[in-house]
């Protein structure tokens, strides 16, 4: 989410979910809300019933594409070219919000100097699109007052993810949609609390509330509060950690609540590194593919067994509450970690989750107004700096988080890091489906769900299926330069020729045995959306 932080000063959803109902146009870009965020998907449909016009940009014919005014079946990996072309049309046809650009942004000339080269005629062939459709989308988006952009992993999970996000922000700024109720730039976060994990400083460069490790004042503040000496050297991102294990630089790894052995890209490499690291602690609620490699496994409690908070994709902090007892001797994650700290001579004296939140509030300006007492009554969105602050549904109203003006950060289009070859002629794109969540450790335990969605499948276009001699329902081998897995073929018009699609969830047939280790150079988000592949009958 670094892209948004650069242009606007904050990387979160700029508007509240409920504001979608007031949008005139909703541009759904690389996101499949009816499957990945179903209740937001339902609200987008409600908005449409109230007259909002939908635009879908996605390589697949997702459900909402049937309800959209226009669907651009963009070739995976070419988002930046498309976004530049949309801006090219908006500027050439004089559809931009001039007053807004004048008063609230900087860098317009730089933007034009880049996007002027991206005429729809030039970009059409790159993205596999009709230039007229590109123009129509540009006009429709520009006509929306307000217009909201909803995007997801289809934008970020590319080696060019950050430039994609910045280009989306450019487009929204150009039409004056940022800082406006029912407008905005709205990334939908995948996991239930990935927003909260970022907010809490589970990031190598930031303490909680995006307070920078590189800022000496921040370090001084936390040193004083915690009574320890802290490092000001930015740490390693998770993909860098695996590289550092390869180099022998990281010897100890502690994984809390994740299953990288299904969800990380290029599982062969991940597996090798988890085996190689000298000491691996895994803390989770189930045994899984990652605990198999652990030296110590610590049993944690799940959301139904503990007090705490999650922060949703719209920055809303909401409580979870204990409903049932924890199984066996399992303990809360924060409790286990506190007990390790004690043994290291690091005191923190937390006796309840509530006390942890009190410390978060005292050291994190954007969370300053939260306490469990208040969250029982209301659930404001951050920034919520003090207990009387009502919270902030819409970001950047009147002023941007980064300062007076937002900045246009134009980018040139760069092809994906791994392109199809003669041996691997197809583009493999991965995603999520309605019935499952990440690795199937949680959803896989509900029988009804497994009845509906019990096994790995790969979607393939009729053209490519014929070429490979595959019929609907055949068992097939899907391979990439990194490996091979089996799945059931679903032949479908949903995809264009040359692109295949696999949901990520199932450990057997885990598509991440195939995906590459290419990452975005800034956020280190893996390129799950594009790798080279081929399909053959099993």
């Amino acid at each position, binding site marked *: 989410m670094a892209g948004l932080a650069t242009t606007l000063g904050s990387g979160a959803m700029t508007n509240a979910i409920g504001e979608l109902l007031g949008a005139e146009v909703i541009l759904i870009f690389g996101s499949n809300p009816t499957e990945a965020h179903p209740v937001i998907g339902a609200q987008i449909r*409600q908005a449409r019933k109230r007259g909002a016009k939908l635009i879908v940009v996605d390589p697949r014919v997702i459900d909402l594409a049937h309800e959209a005014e226009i669907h651009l079946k963009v070739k995976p990996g070419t988002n930046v070219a498309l976004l530049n072309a949309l801006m090219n049309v908006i500027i050439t046809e004089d559809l931009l919000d001039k007053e807004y650009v004048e008063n609230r942004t900087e860098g317009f000339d730089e933007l034009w100097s880049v996007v002027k080269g991206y005429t729809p005629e030039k970009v059409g062939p790159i993205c596999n699109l009709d230039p007229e459709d590109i123009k129509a989308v540009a006009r429709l988006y520009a006509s929306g007052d307000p217009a909201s952009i909803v995007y997801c992993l289809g934008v970020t999970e590319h080696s060019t993810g950050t430039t994609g996000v910045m280009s989306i922000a450019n487009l929204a700024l150009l039409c004056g949609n940022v800082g406006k109720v029912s407008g905005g730039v709205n990334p939908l976060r995948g996991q239930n609390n990935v927003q909260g994990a970022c907010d809490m400083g589970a990031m190598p460069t930031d*303490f909680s509330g995006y307070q920078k490790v590189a800022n000496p004042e921040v370090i001084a503040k936390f040193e004083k509060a915690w009574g320890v000496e802290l490092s000001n050297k930015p740490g390693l991102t998770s993909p860098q950690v695996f590289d550092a294990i390869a180099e022998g630089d990281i*010897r100890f790894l502690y994984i809390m609540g994740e299953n990288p052995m299904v969800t990380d890209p290029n599982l062969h490499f991940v597996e090798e590194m988890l085996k190689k690291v000298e000491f691996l602690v895994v803390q989770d*609620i189930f045994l899984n593919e990652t605990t198999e490699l652990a030296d110590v496994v610590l049993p944690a409690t799940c959301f139904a067994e503990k007090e705490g908070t999650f922060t949703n994709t719209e920055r*809303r902090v909401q409580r979870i*509450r204990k409903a049932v007892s924890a199984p066996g001797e399992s303990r809360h994650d924060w409790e286990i970690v506190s007990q390790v700290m004690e043994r290291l001579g690091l005191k923190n004296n937390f006796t309840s989750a509530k006390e942890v939140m009190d410390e978060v509030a005292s050291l994190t300006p954007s969370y300053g107004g939260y306490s469990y007492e208040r969250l029982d009554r209301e659930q404001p969105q951050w920034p919520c700096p003090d207990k009387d602050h009502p919270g902030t549904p819409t970001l950047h109203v009147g002023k941007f988080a980064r300062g007076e003006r937002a900045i246009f950060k134009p980018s040139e289009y760069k092809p994906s890091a791994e392109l199809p070859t003669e041996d691997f002629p197809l583009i493999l794109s991965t995603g999520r489906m309605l019935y499952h969540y*990440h690795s199937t450790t949680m959803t896989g335990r509900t029988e009804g769900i497994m009845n509906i969605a019990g096994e790995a499948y790969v979607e393939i276009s009729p053209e490519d299926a014929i070429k490979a001699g595959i019929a609907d329902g055949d068992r097939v081998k899907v391979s990439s330069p990194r490996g091979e897995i089996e799945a059931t073929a679903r032949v479908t018009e949903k995809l264009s020729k040359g692109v295949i699609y696999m949901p990520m969830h199932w450990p057997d047939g885990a598509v991440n045995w195939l995906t590459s280790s290419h990452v975005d150079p800034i956020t280190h988000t893996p390129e799950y959306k594009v790798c080279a592949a081929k399909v053959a009958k099993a």
Partner: protein
Amino acid sequence: MHNVIIDGQSIEVEKGTTILKACEQLGIEIPTLCHLEHLAPEGSCRMCVVEVEGVQNLQISCATPCWDGMVVTTMNDRIRTFRSMIVELLLAHHDVDCFNCSAVGDCKLYQYAMEYGVEESRFDHIKKVPVKDESSDFFNYDPSKCILCRRCVRTCNELQSNGTLSLKKRGGDTFVSLPFDKLFKDSNCVSCGNCVSVCPTGALTTKASKTYRSWEVTRTRTTCSYCGVGCQMDLLVKNDKVVGVEPADGAPNKNLLCVKGKFAYNFINSPDRLTTPLIRKDGVLTPASWDEALDFVADNIKKVKDESGPDALAGFASGRVSNEDNYVFMKMMRSIGTNNVDHCARV
């Protein structure tokens, strides 16, 4: 603002407020069957009638806006008689085999029949309805229990916006059906269960509801642990086990859930849950005490830190656990002296 007097109590309400809403604000309970939050009033069941001074007919409170100076009575003999007649009419079309109904205790029809003293119906009509549909993996549909409040139809069409359910007329009988009379499992139904959650009777019930009665469960308000929408929900607990989930009226979800939030809770009580720390001994994960396991972890942290410095350690927190868990985790890693803390996979 309008000044209204309800049962002798006076209240100021905003323009456009319905009588029902004004009653809610005063804590006066009005029986409703077809009314649904977040949707335009349906006004079809007429259970919510009240008397308005100067107006001859009883008024449906869910759809009638207050006006300035309005004087409302919410209960008297006339209202009571009217409401009990409605219940009687509904019962005539309702299969009253309550012993075999999993909605017992949760059924609004049953509740109002008790409240209005309706023990049996003088009206007699055997409704010709289609057979039960038990094809869904998650819920059952019994048309003989349907009272035609249309809550499910409106929820599916206007809120979930999935367009699976509609009312159909055949002969003199109306019932809820799916396009082309399909079964749930063969339809475009996405198993969100939102129609089930709003059904006031036993017509739409979760399969799991057979295992509990509503008075046996406690409810705990919480946040769904699956995706980033953060839907608000109540966990229904019986004997220390989660037996069901009901949507709540939270800002992100306004009474909706998806199939994961509504039905995928079995993992909580799964026998496969980890219950004790495990330490790998001779290649095998072996149960250990907490002291052993925590010492083992701490000793290895110290060892690696002493030998190779704090940056030889790294930790991944998670987008699945709570803010509090993540905060304490990052505090630990940084206090050890390294900023090598991230959440996994950055997705």
